[in-house]
């Protein structure tokens, strides 16, 4: 059942009522090739079987570029190149020199940050504001942070001599393409491993651009290899006998498959998987600030965030006021052209993902939850979804249990602290959580009791290269970022 926005204050209907003058970022800065080959052994090489996949701009549905599909033979070649890169160069090099190469990558990325941002937005559909201010700077910072670790590993693990594992296979998702590539590559390289990395098939562009930056940085051949392709390329990589480490970010189902597939091997595994984070608002919270935080928690990157605050638990005494303010704020969110600097919510990454989100919206309505969406005007072309929330959601509802990976918020209420801890932890996931309250002791109590790898207090969706990220339970294992992020790439 649909509910109307019943605000007593006349809301500023910026989304629908007001028309903003367009403020588009120019796409001229992005030099996009028509076709990309595989980056193996320091060279661009065509795929053995000659197949390519088209990638479209999800905001316009127009073709953007085509990228090679790596087959088993290409994977074989890349792993061999990475092994050679490890034996011949990388493991013999001093930490100091390794670090200098990684610093160089960070600097070259910073210099080309605008081009990377534009590419990221054209390829994946995220607002230019986010790729420009969040994805790309964070990716640069990640390389800069880990570069500094390369010559300090003897200080990293008390009473142990840390050694690299060898060849790391890394598979990244489509929601933060370059940032995830940085999260994977930077620590692997700093700890002395060589890499074969496969980006997601719908968003390979910035990772391919990163390959050319790595080439420009003059890294020894084979230290970083980039293979594009879809699921089959990924599984060939996971199964390859000569890799020593797998780092995967993606769905829980695929993560489980990887654990099954590698059970009999000695491959060290880290998995960063799905989530269904609770964002918990207590009655003493600074309400307007919490509304902003909840909006940022679920609508950041169209909700394509594994740690998205997709379950809102609001204390019953403030629920009606809070939900009204949330609806008012949602009405002001601009949905549309990701290249427009005013856009808050860009394009859904793919037609398939939009379908999945719409299925959940239909399901929520069918299950009897109350549906509300903003009346934002959507572009004619491209994949778009209005910011959506559901109230009267049952704890057992699939809306409250399953990861939707879209701009859809499930709202539940609670009375006591014990109750909300129980409800928040009642999910197979455990990636992140948010707590909004004015009381410091409550924050630390909540943080201690919530089974989640990252807890944001009076904040949400903050990331930093110095801060470890990763899950409890079925959200995976291992940490990326910070000192703890070194450990998955080392042996002793």
């Amino acid at each position, binding site marked *: 059942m649909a509910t109307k926005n019943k605000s007593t204050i006349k809301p500023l209907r910026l989304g629908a009522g007001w028309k903003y003058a367009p403020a588009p970022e120019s796409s001229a800065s992005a030099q996009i090739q028509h076709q990309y080959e595989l980056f193996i052994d320091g060279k661009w090489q065509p795929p053995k079987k000659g197949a390519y996949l088209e990638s479209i701009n999800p905001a316009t549905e127009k073709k953007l570029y085509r990228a090679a599909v790596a087959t088993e033979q290409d994977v074989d070649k890349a792993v061999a190149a990475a092994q050679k890169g490890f034996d011949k160069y990388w493991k013999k090099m001093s930490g100091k020199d390794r670090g200098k190469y990684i610093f160089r990558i960070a600097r070259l990325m910073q210099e080309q940050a605008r081009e990377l941002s534009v590419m990221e937005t054209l390829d994946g559909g995220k607002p230019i504001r986010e790729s420009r201010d969040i994805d790309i700077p964070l990716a640069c*910072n990640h390389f800069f942070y880990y570069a500094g670790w390369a010559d300090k590993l003897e200080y990293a693990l008390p009473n142990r001599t840390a050694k690299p594992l060898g060849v790391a296979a890394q598979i990244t998702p489509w929601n933060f393409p370059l940032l995830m590539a940085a999260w994977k590559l930077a620590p692997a390289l700093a700890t002395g491993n060589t890499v074969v990395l496969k980006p997601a098939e719908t968003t390979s562009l910035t990772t391919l651009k990163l390959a050319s930056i790595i080439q420009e940085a003059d890294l020894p051949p084979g230290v970083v290899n980039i293979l594009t392709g879809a699921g089959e390329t990924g599984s060939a990589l996971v199964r390859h006998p000569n890799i020593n480490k797998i780092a995967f970010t993606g769905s829980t189902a695929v993560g*489980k498959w990887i654990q*099954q597939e590698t059970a009999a091997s000695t491959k060290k595994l880290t998995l960063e998987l799905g989530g269904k984070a609770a964002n918990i608002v207590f009655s003493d919270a600074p309400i307007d600030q919490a509304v902003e935080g909840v909006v940022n928690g679920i609508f950041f990157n169209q909700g394509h965030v594994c740690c998205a605050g997709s379950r809102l638990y609001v204390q019953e005494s403030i629920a009606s006021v809070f939900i009204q303010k949330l609806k008012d704020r949602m009405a002001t969110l601009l949905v549309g052209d990701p290249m427009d600097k005013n856009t808050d919510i860009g394009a859904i990454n793919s037609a398939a993902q939009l379908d999945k989100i719409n299925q959940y919206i239909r399901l929520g309505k069918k299950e009897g939850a109350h549906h509300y969406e903003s009346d934002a005007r959507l572009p004619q072309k491209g994949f778009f979804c209005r910011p959506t929330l559901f109230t009267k959601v049952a704890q057992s509802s699939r809306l409250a249990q399953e990861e939707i990976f879209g701009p859809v918020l499930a709202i539940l209420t609670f009375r006591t602290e014990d109750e909300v801890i129980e409800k928040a932890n009642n999910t197979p996931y455990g990636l992140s959580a948010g707590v909004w309250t004015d009381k410091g002791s409550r924050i*630390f109590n909540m943080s*201690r009791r919530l089974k989640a790898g990252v*807890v944001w207090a009076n904040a949400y969706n*903050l990331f930093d290269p110095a*801060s470890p990220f990763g899950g409890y339970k079925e959200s*995976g294992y291992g940490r990326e970022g910070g000192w703890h992020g070194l450990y998955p790439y080392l042996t002793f």
Partner: protein
Amino acid sequence: MKKANDRIAVLKTYKLYIGGQFPRTESGRYYAALDAKGNKIANLCLASRKDCREAIGAARTALGNWSMRAAYNRGQILYRIAEMLESRKDQFIAELCAQGMSRSAARKETVGAIDRLIHYAGWCDKYQALFSTVNPVASNHYNFSVCEPMGVVVLFAPESPLLGLVSVLAPCIAGGNTAIVIAHQFKALCAISLAEVLNSSDVPVGVVNILTGNQAELMPWLAEHKDVNAIVQSQKDPSLLSDLRKKATGNLKRVIHWPVIDWHDTAVQSPYRITDLQEIKTTWHPIQQIAGSGSSY
């Protein structure tokens, strides 16, 4: 055959240890503990799937209290276990000898176990300082990462009947986890005698549960159980490990492998055994930006 004036010995009934109680296996099944010559010494419970389930329930119930206890208090309790073991070491040496160990080996096994407990008792309130971090993030946030116990942990005890068992148990509970120990099928007498020690050492009910039986038979039930967070396997056999990893994917249990050959080697004891069974939690807390006006006080 007893001689005319001999006292008739009172034999001990070996049972399971679940939730602070000593029940028999619900299945009524048993197997024989044998001495070096193959003679029967005692009957042992052949634990069942349902016994595992009971033990997991007890461990889950105990987790909240145990993981929230002061680290200092956990250290004292581990130390108390060592004290209790020390005072009963003759019993353990005798039991190990009865199961075929030489007297000197049995002594070494027992004192090794006591010393290992002391080692980990001391770690209880120290590993956090070494493996937690305060992270210098770029925004105005106090950001820190701490170790937290994984939760309910199943320990497949190694062949070393006392020292090996204690060496996997101590780091697990030192880190605030609760445990279900599946004793090695053979030489399992002192696993149950250890339960008597634990029972008189202020270890809260359910923190350690000990079952005797066939590890291979129980493995699938434990690996697939949704309320287990992690499993430790210490056998060398790679096929055991591979099966375990496959069965554990249902809820992505952490599978930890400690393939140790010589449990007497002090290199096997380290805080890394504790951190192997810890999760890392990162908290972001805002820092107010008021006053100061650029002065450095």
